[in-house]
């Protein structure tokens, strides 16, 4: 995805360029969110305001759609929280590297901790603190600007989306590439395969909660492997 690091690497630029690759397949989703706001009957400025306030695509679309359908606030909020619960793992995983960061960044960084930013940054935890911060901010701000722009655009151009538009196939391919970069031992490979298997077995669970259980199962397996290795 990017050139090997060198002492002169500009990590701000690198974070921007790496993020740009993952932005492209997310464009249709952002446009569809704009459409969902229009269809929900909620005032468009109010629906769009969830983009800067929540900055959490799948949870936003869940919340807005359910509220638009007349679901109770409690039901809509609960469903959206379940959809976004995987972020707990991201927070857990990022905790050690954030210890080396200044307090302002520890408070600000979680706002931008979306799937793509986690995927890009989880493999960069060995960078010097300042370089990691530049990379994280560049990637996060790139996604933030993209999401604000394209969800707003979706409010107006969503209705004229071509029905054959299909570039989202690239998302799992790109994430698979990022997954591979996080694997540098047979134990991690085993954990990844195990998590995939559990996800497959739990595919029918509601609200994608199988993903959470699979990730937890993978983490427990990792703990056991470490324990046996010591």
């Amino acid at each position, binding site marked *: 995805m990017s050139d090997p690091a060198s002492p002169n690497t500009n990590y701000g630029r690198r974070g921007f360029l790496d993020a740009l690759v993952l932005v492209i397949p997310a464009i249709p989703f952002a446009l569809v969110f704009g459409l969902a706001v229009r269809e929900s009957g909620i005032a468009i400025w109010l629906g769009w305001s969830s983009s800067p306030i929540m900055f959490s695509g799948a949870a936003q679309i869940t919340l807005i759609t359910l509220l638009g359908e007349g679901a109770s606030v409690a039901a809509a909020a609960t469903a959206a*929280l379940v959809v976004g619960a995987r972020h707990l793992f991201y927070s857990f995983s990022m905790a050690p590297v954030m210890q080396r960061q200044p307090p302002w960044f520890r408070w600000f960084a979680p706002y931008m901790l979306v799937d793509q930013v986690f995927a890009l940054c989880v493999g960069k935890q060995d960078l010097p603190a300042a370089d990691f911060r530049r990379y994280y901010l560049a990637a996060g701000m790139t996604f933030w600007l993209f999401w604000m722009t394209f969800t707003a655009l979706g409010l107006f151009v969503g209705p004229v989306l071509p029905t054959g538009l299909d570039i989202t196939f690239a998302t799992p391919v790109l994430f698979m590439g990022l997954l591979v970069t996080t694997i540098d031992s047979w134990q991690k490979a085993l954990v990844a395969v195990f998590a995939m298997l559990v996800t497959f077995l739990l595919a029918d669970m509601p609200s994608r909660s199988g993903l959470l259980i699979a990730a937890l199962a993978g983490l427990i397996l990792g703990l056991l492997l470490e324990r046996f290795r010591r």
Partner: protein
Amino acid sequence: MTILLTILIMGLGSYAMRAVFILLLSNHSFPPWALKALEYVGPAVMAALVMTMLLSPEGGRLPEFMSGQGWPPQQWLHCLPETTFTF
């Protein structure tokens, strides 16, 4: 007003889920085995995410209770065929 309040509360909830461990554990030292174990979070979560994307059935981007209610409209599904959790 209720919807705005809901969005604001959800914004706080979304932030809290991302921030909870980063902030709570900011002053705690991790034992070496825990640091080693944390290295598995990335592969475990990413693998589960990729498999979810690959498995996602029609409308799978959304919770099941939505996809059975005619949402999203069929023309949208052509745009969003197989993936989930764009973020």
